[in-house]
């Protein structure tokens, strides 16, 4: 697995060179988009992290986790992951913040850390897709698609915590 990324980078670079793409200018062109992207998501990341911190320190986080953990427990989802599972459909940048928190708290290679990584990497911000993709549509019959997407995401979350146990 550790060869995937190096080979990918190598392959992309070679293909680009063969296609006569100016490599330096191209790379710089991509990097130029990085800072604006961070600037764009930064206020959201910051606000969600403030929310997390206040929730944690007030003890609200513990209460919500305790209330929901039996429900999530039925499906085998550890209570440490509840926050991530709840935030992910609403906010991509927010859940990125929660992922980073989870990885630092429990360790990136722990079972919880690996589960969190898989859940984050395999799901999408459902309501963002609804808002952005279909913003210009006149007819918005989005209730069914939203339910279908949330159910599918939940099924894959259950699958993720299971697969992380055996892989």
């Amino acid at each position, binding site marked *: 697995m550790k060869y995937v990324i190096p080979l990918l980078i190598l392959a992309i670079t070679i293909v680009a060179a063969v296609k006569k793409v100016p490599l330096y200018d191209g790379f710089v062109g991509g990097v130029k988009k990085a800072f604006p992207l*961070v600037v764009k998501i930064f206020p959201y990341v910051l606000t969600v992290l*403030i929310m997390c911190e206040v929730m944690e320190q007030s003890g609200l986080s513990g209460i919500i986790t305790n209330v929901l953990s039996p429900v999530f427990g039925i499906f085998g989802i550890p209570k440490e992951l509840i926050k991530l599972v709840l935030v992910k459909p609403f906010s991509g940048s927010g859940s990125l913040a929660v992922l980073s928190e989870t990885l630092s708290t429990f360790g990136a290679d722990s079972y919880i*850390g690996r589960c969190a990584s*898989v*859940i984050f990497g395999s799901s999408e911000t459902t309501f963002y897709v609804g808002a952005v993709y279909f913003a210009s549509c006149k007819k918005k019959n989005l209730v069914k698609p939203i339910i*279908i997407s949330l159910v599918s995401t939940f099924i894959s979350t259950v699958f993720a915590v299971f697969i992380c146990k055996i892989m």
Partner: protein
Amino acid sequence: MNVIFACILIVSVGYMTFTAPELILSAMTSGAEKALKLAAGLTAIYSVWLGIFELLERSGLTEKLSKLAYKPVKRIFGNVDDSAAKYLALNVTANIIGLSSVATPMGIKAAAYLDEKDNEYAKAMLFAVAATSLQILPTTVISLRDKLGSVSSYDIVLPTLLSTLVSTVCGILLTAVFVKR
């Protein structure tokens, strides 16, 4: 998100006003500090990946790969014409590679086009496919794990791929069953 934020903030701050009023401000500031650290890390991560992805895009590979996606797209989305299939194929391909800067505008175009044609089934399918994100390489997650001290940041690649496959297949099947053609 507004409702969630309002509830959490009011309940938390309300509760802390009685239990630990002196900690409220420091809790909020410490959340903001964590965000600053994360933003620095993300700038580095995004710079590397967006640089590489730009090369991929300029090589014209997205267009080529999207031709491969053309047939499966027509099959999954049912009765769509050629221009809709082109947008959809580009959206799906770009999402799979992880080029969201390409995927999102194509998705918006596809949605608007299908809306005009009154193709509700294909719209619902587009939603399901986009919202269950078939992604081949979770680049941000790998880099973030690496930065936060993982010794095997790639361990999650295969489980992530399997699990995103599960969600996409579920999304497609549920749409096919529950949304009228």
